[in-house]
């Protein structure tokens, strides 16, 4: 009897696949899917006291979200900051990844490891180190004052949106380099030679061959940076000041001091929806644009 069951098991590729998947699947179901469902249900409830939630269905929290301009403003700001973080990260990491893929001949892996070296320290420490760099008594200000170029510390370096953007793009750079490098390194060099041979300059070849072929990496990098940074609340808290606060800080306080779980859940659902829509749009547009370019 057991031998037939064994037989069936070993004959079925699907059964084997599910066995391999099961640890991850269990984790995803209990740690991702279940909380998500609870959150969506909660967003249609009402907080009636400190500890009590009315479980009757209502769309009231979504109405609250859209009737108070602060929420939409914070959502827009989150998207805007993440957009600039993504842009800045891509602009700084693409040339690096390009350099490693095309110009480094030996020890490519060493370069990659060196590039990710700063990311071996804790995320929090890296955010704090930016405070040390940008602060009133920070590295930049003391250097400028020490050389006598300024008399008072520059106050605009820290506690604003620009500080959030700089800190976040540095924090996520390593995650952008890897997909970009992989997609660039995969490009067959004879395709570039074919392009030169057919009359294109190096610059034209980049836009007609290299860039379109690296798009999977670019899209990967965009998604990998944009999605987590939209929801980041540590960096804005530490270097953003009031001007740099994002929707995620609001959600954090709704689940904390402000104690309005349903409104917090509704904000999170709306943020999630926005991020998904933007991710889909980015993927669609980049593909269209690349088709046109080449």
């Amino acid at each position, binding site marked *: 009897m057991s031998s037939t069951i064994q037989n069936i098991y070993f004959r079925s590729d699907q059964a084997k696949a599910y066995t391999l998947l099961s640890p991850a699947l269990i984790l995803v179901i209990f740690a991702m899917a279940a909380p998500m469902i609870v959150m969506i249900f909660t967003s249609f409830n009402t907080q009636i006291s400190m500890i009590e939630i009315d479980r009757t269905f209502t769309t009231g929290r979504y109405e609250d979200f859209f009737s108070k301009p602060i929420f939409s403003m914070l959502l827009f700001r989150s998207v805007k900051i993440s957009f600039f973080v993504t842009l800045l990260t891509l602009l700084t990491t693409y040339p690096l990844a390009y350099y490693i893929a095309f110009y480094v001949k030996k020890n490519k892996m060493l370069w990659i490891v060196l590039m990710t070296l700063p990311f071996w320290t804790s995320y929090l420490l890296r955010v704090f180190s930016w405070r040390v760099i940008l602060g009133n008594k920070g590295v930049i200000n003391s250097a400028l004052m020490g050389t006598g170029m300024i008399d008072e510390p520059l106050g605009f370096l820290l506690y604003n949106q620009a500080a959030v953007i700089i800190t976040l793009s540095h924090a996520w750079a390593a995650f952008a380099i890897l997909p970009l490098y992989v997609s660039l390194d995969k490009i067959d060099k004879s395709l570039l030679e074919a392009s*030169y*041979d057919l*009359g294109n300059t190096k610059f034209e070849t980049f836009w007609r061959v290299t860039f*379109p072929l690296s798009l999977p990496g670019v899209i990967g990098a965009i998604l990998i940076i944009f999605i987590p940074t939209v929801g980041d609340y540590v960096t804005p808290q530490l270097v953003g000041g009031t001007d740099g606060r994002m929707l995620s800080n609001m959600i954090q306080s709704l689940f904390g001091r402000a104690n309005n779980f349903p409104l917090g859940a509704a904000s999170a659902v709306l943020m999630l929806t926005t991020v998904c829509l933007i991710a889909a749009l980015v993927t669609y547009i980049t593909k269209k644009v690349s088709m046109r370019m*080449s």
Partner: protein
Amino acid sequence: MSTKNYIKIKNLSKSFGDVEVLKNINLEVEEGEFFSLLGPSGCGKTTLLRILAGFEYPSEGEVFFDDANVTSLPPNLRPSNMVFQNYAIFPHINVQRNIEFGLRKENLSKAEMGERVENALKMVQLEGYENRYSNQLSGGQRQRIALARALVKQPKVLLLDEPLGALDKKLREEMQIELRNLQKSLGITFIFVTHDQEEAMTMSDRIAVMDEGNILQVSPPREIYHNPKNKFVSQFIGNINILDADLKNVSSESISISVDGFGLMTLKNHQKIIEGDRFNIAIRPEEINISKVSDPNHDCNFNGKVKNISFYGESTYFYIQLDNSEKILMVSTNESKETFSESDNCFVNFNSQNLKIIKD
């Protein structure tokens, strides 16, 4: 055929680090010629082609196209186009756009462009494939697209880097004839790199045989086959029996040699051998006959024993152990009047005038 030399290569050398891959190359290729660079892998033939394309720059020496020095001209400004070994079809665009790729800068009208692409596809017999992508094409089709993409630019020189290497035998033979016909009808210069001697023989007007960064011989296929300049060329092009020989007597007219297993012979000194030269005596397998009894029509008759037989269909190779020598002789024949089996006794016979004198 015009006798104008379109490509001239003068005193060209190329080193990668300490390794000298091309050593003082001098070469001239005529306009409209089908010219092959033939040699084993690592002989420098691909590097030479890449220098002609502009992908590599020579360490020393110069390259001229139509008397213009193009040595330091980048590939996009040269009147040559290349067909790559792996075809290098752009995977992100379809066949139509692949072929148009090099035409963008020629300021053609939409109608002209369409016509050029259509003609190019017709030329390689792939009409109707405009909307396919590289991963939807077979190896042979990719090869044709790569050819169309290069030819649509109407180059003066087409450079081909082992373009048939990845195709199966049947398709390769078809493409050889097709390429040859195409080259004749277009009248442009083809530089064809290959390690396959048969391929080079069937297609080329002239072949340059290369080894270790040197060009050993530049001749038409027949000349290379019948009068190889040295041992390497004779062995690389077709099969040949190399015999050990001692020089006994030499004059400007003739030489006397003692050949291992064959005794003393006198041959015409057409290679102008002088005392002290190192040389070999050789004979092609098809110039030797095999028979059951001694054959008086040939001046050389020797006893031997059949060791191995390889049947190729159009010909049969016999490997014969000579009675009074260690030597094993290769004999090929396409007639089968007499049947032989392994370890049969036999006679091998040939005319001494067919023996080649080949310098080392």
